[in-house]
Every structure is written in structure tokens, then in C-alpha cells.
């Protein structure tokens, strides 16, 4: 039963992964990637790793791929743009990396290492492995775990800074010419009481408009 299901989901996984790179339409490719993630989650479930399987769906299929799809849809990418130096470069790089990967796989197969290490066939704990993962994450791997969350936090703050940097200074930048000479110490909250010669009446109106 389980080997049968495993074979079925593995076949779906391989086929959808192939279609991700072979299909011309980016949206369809992204959808096949979602299918690949879901069948991978099914494989995890069959291997008794329920937590990893569910997190695979939540994180990859539910969050990351939605954002991918968003970008593809709303940039309105139709088909791949053909021709040009970039395409040639991309093709060349693809061939090189692909050749390296195939060589690696062939070497592993030749040495008989493809099967990987044998996992111990112990029965899973009664509560599933979620508790075990949580315990390890918050005891032995606490430091890497916290570092990872810090990295994510930095990425988030960075994204906010980048997007805000593009929108907010646009207002003052347009109104900057008369204000450039104004002393920096003038509090922006009280433009009417600012030093003379800074056109206090014009600046706030510009800001409101922006």
C-alpha cells in the first residue's frame, strides 16, 4: 500500500518538476511547482514526517508560491522572451550547471552511494514527531534557530526600508529646492513656525499631496 502510494506521488513529483522547466507559460510553470511541492509533502507524510509535510505545504505552497504567482501575474509576464545576449548567457549557464549535476549524479551512482544511508526503522513516537522537533529546536538548536529568525527579520526590515525609501522622500525631494537651505534643526511637525524664507505655506501642501 505505502510503496504503491509512494511510487504514485513520486511519479507526480517527477512529472510536475519536469513540466515546471519545460512549460512555456510562467503561470503554468508556477502551478506545476505548487503541485510538485504538494506531492513532496505527500511523500513526507508517507515517510512518517507529518510535521515537515504540513510545513512544506504551509510555507512553500501556501506562502512562497503565492507570492511567486503574484509577481508573475501582475508583471503580466506572457511567454519567455527569446533572443538577446541574456538568453544566450542563460542557456550557456544552464548547460554548464546541468552538465555538472548530471556528472555528479553519475559519479554517485557509479560508486553505489545513490541509495543513501539506511535510516533506523524505529516506530515513531506516539505523539508524532512534532514534539520531538520542537524540543530539539528550542534546546539543542536554539542558537541557529534564533539566528535564522534574526536573518528573516533583517530581510523584512530591509524590504520595508527599500519600499518606503522609494515612496516617502519623493514628496520632500520635489519640494526640496527651496527647503535645501533651511537649517536641518527645524522640526518638521511645525512648518508654519519654521525659519523665514523656507516657504512654510507651500511645503506642507506638497507633502499632503504626495
Amino acid at each position: 500500500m505505502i510503496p504503491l502510494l509512494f511510487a504514485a506521488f513520486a511519479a507526480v513529483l517527477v512529472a510536475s518538476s519536469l513540466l515546471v522547466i519545460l512549460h512555456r507559460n510562467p503561470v503554468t510553470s508556477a502551478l506545476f511547482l505548487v503541485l510538485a511541492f504538494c506531492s513532496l509533502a505527500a511523500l513526507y507524510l508517507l515517510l512518517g514526517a507529518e510535521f515537515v509535510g504540513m510545513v512544506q505545504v504551509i510555507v512553500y505552497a501556501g506562502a512562497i508560491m503565492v507570492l511567486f504567482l503574484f509577481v508573475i501575474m501582475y508583471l503580466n509576464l506572457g511567454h519567455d522572451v527569446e533572443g538577446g545576449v541574456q538568453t544566450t548567457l542563460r542557456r550557456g549557464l544552464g548547460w554548464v550547471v546541468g552538465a555538472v549535476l548530471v556528472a555528479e549524479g553519475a559519479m554517485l551512482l557509479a560508486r553505489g552511494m545513490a541509495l543513501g544511508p539506511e535510516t533506523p526503522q524505529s516506530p515513531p513516537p506516539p505523539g508524532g514527531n512534532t514534539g520531538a522537533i520542537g524540543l530539539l529546536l528550542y534546546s539543542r538548536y536554539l542558537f541557529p534557530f534564533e539566528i535564522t529568525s534574526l536573518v528573516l527579520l533583517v530581510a523584512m526590515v530591509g524590504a520595508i526600508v527599500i519600499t518606503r525609501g522609494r515612496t516617502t522622500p519623493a514628496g520632500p525631494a520635489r519640494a526640496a529646492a527651496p527647503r535645501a537651505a533651511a537649517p536641518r534643526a527645524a522640526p518638521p511637525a511645525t512648518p508654519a513656525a519654521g525659519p523665514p524664507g523656507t516657504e512654510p505655506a507651500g511645503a506642507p501642501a506638497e507633502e499632503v499631496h504626495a
Partner: protein
Amino acid sequence: MPALLANPDAQFVLWALIKIVVILFGLLGVVSYLTFAERKVAGHIQARTGPNRVGPFGLLQPIADVLKLFFKEEFIPAGANKVVFHIAPMLAVIPALVTFSVVPMGPNFTVTDLNVGLLLFLAMSSLGVYSITLAGWSSNNKYALLGGLRSSAQMISYELAMGLSTVGVLMLAGSLSLVDIVHAQQRYWFIVQQPLAFIIFLITAFAETNRAPFDLPEAEAELVAGFHTEYSSMKWGLFFLGEYANMITISSIAVTLFLGGWNGPWLPEPLKFLWYFAKLAALLFFFMWVRWTFPRLRYDQLMQLGWKVLLPLALLNVMVTAVGLWWAVGR
């Protein structure tokens, strides 16, 4: 044949199929009468009678509606992406049905007691975005696209608060299995210890199901009909079905997490499932009540509420619960 039936694998598959069929048809029946109930409730709230022509008290109205849907013309817009256009309505129904496989309806009345049941619910609700986004995009219609865009932004924003609001319950129950969570509420329901989380969960549930006052994806005054503008016939019917199935599923999860599931006084053990159905019916009525009494939020209000109110409150709730647990255990 007897040899096949003796095979445990075959038995497992057979039982699973029977349970699936029962749940599927039960849910479809409940959905069709939920639309009837919604119209009756709406009528009552607006001081009119609601549907009362087809059959006694209008009870055959859902059947007439479904027949009408089946016989309507099926229209596919010219510039549509045909395959995605067909897949999107199916994706609206599937996640809700899958989630229902882990909902404990009574003692020994669950399709499967998965030890990551709550995660399955979160995973399926995160997949629910696809149907609306894809429907909006594949229709090749600007209103549909705008509706899909709004809906995906809304659902992604509210998913976080929803996930965090369930964390308090998880900490109290100490398990991700929904059956264990129900068992942990035998003395008192988690709504007693987690009132804030319950309110957050309920609000996000309205947003996740795209129901009023969060029905911006289909705001008819601005977007014609939103993401399903171009859908007709039974494809539109599937979106409708999906909305109600999602409503039932999310109410079931709310009952399980906060309202004690099938726990309740008086009834003997085999009839406890009636408590679950009673609570579910009350929550579903609450959904309708809210829909017909509250105005729609503006888009910026929706985002403000999600990111600046609900998410910090849910985080605060997790922290307070953690401190409370630490204090209670440490004493």
C-alpha cells in the same frame, strides 16, 4: 472477494471511501440548505419573508436553485486562460473538503485523527488563496483581476493573525491533534482562557471566507462581481459552494478549538455529537447575522485592522499565554 476484504489495506481504503462519501454528501446537503437558511435569515433581518414559493415554507428552493444553475449557459471569455479558468473553481472547494477530514464531530466520529490536524487546517486555508487569485487572473477581466488581487492580499494578511490566534490553544492543549484538543476541554472550554484569541479567530475567519464585512473581493458596487465576474453556470456554483463549505469548515475549527467541540452537559456519550452540531449551527447563524447587519470595510481599514490591530494582539495573546503557563506550571 472475501480474501480481498480480509486484507487490512483494502479494509482501510474501503472505510476511508465510505467516510469520504458520507462526509462529502452530508456537506453538500448542508451547504445547499445553508444557502436557504441564509436567505431566510436575511429576509427575517430585513423584515420580509424570504423564499417561500417552492414547496412547503420554500423548503425545495435549494433544489430549484441547483437545477437552474445546471441548465444555465456556460460562458468562457475569449481571452481567458482556459485550463486555469477550469481549475480555479475546483480549488475553491477542495481545501474545505480536505480540512473536514480531521474535524472531530463526536466521540469516535472523526474521519481521521491526524496528529498534525491543526497544521492541516492551516495548510489548507493557505491554499485557499489560489482559487480566487487564479480565477481573477485567468478571466482576462479587469474587475476580476482587481477582485483576485484584493482577495489574495486580504487572505495572506489575515492568515498570520489566524495562525497566531490558534497558538494559545495549542499551548494549553499541548497537542496539534484536534481530537486531543477537544479532550483537553472536558472541564471548561478554551474560550474561557482564550477569549481574545477567540475574537481574533472569529474576525479572521470572516476575512478568510471573504464574507461581509470583509467581502471586498466581490464588492459589487466597485468591482461588478469581483473575481467571479466571468463565471457562470455550475462553475460559479462551485465558488458559491466553496464559500459555504469554507464557512462550515472554519466554524467547525472554531467550535473545536474554542467552544469545546462535542463536549457538553446532559447528553449521553453516543449523542454528544449533537452538541457539536448545535454549536456549529449557532456559529453559522452568527456568520449570517453579521453579514446582514454590518457594512463593508474600506480597503485601507481592512489592512490597518489586520496588520496593526489583530496581528499585534495575537502576538500579545501568545506571550500572555506563555507567561501564564510558565507561572502556573512553575508554582
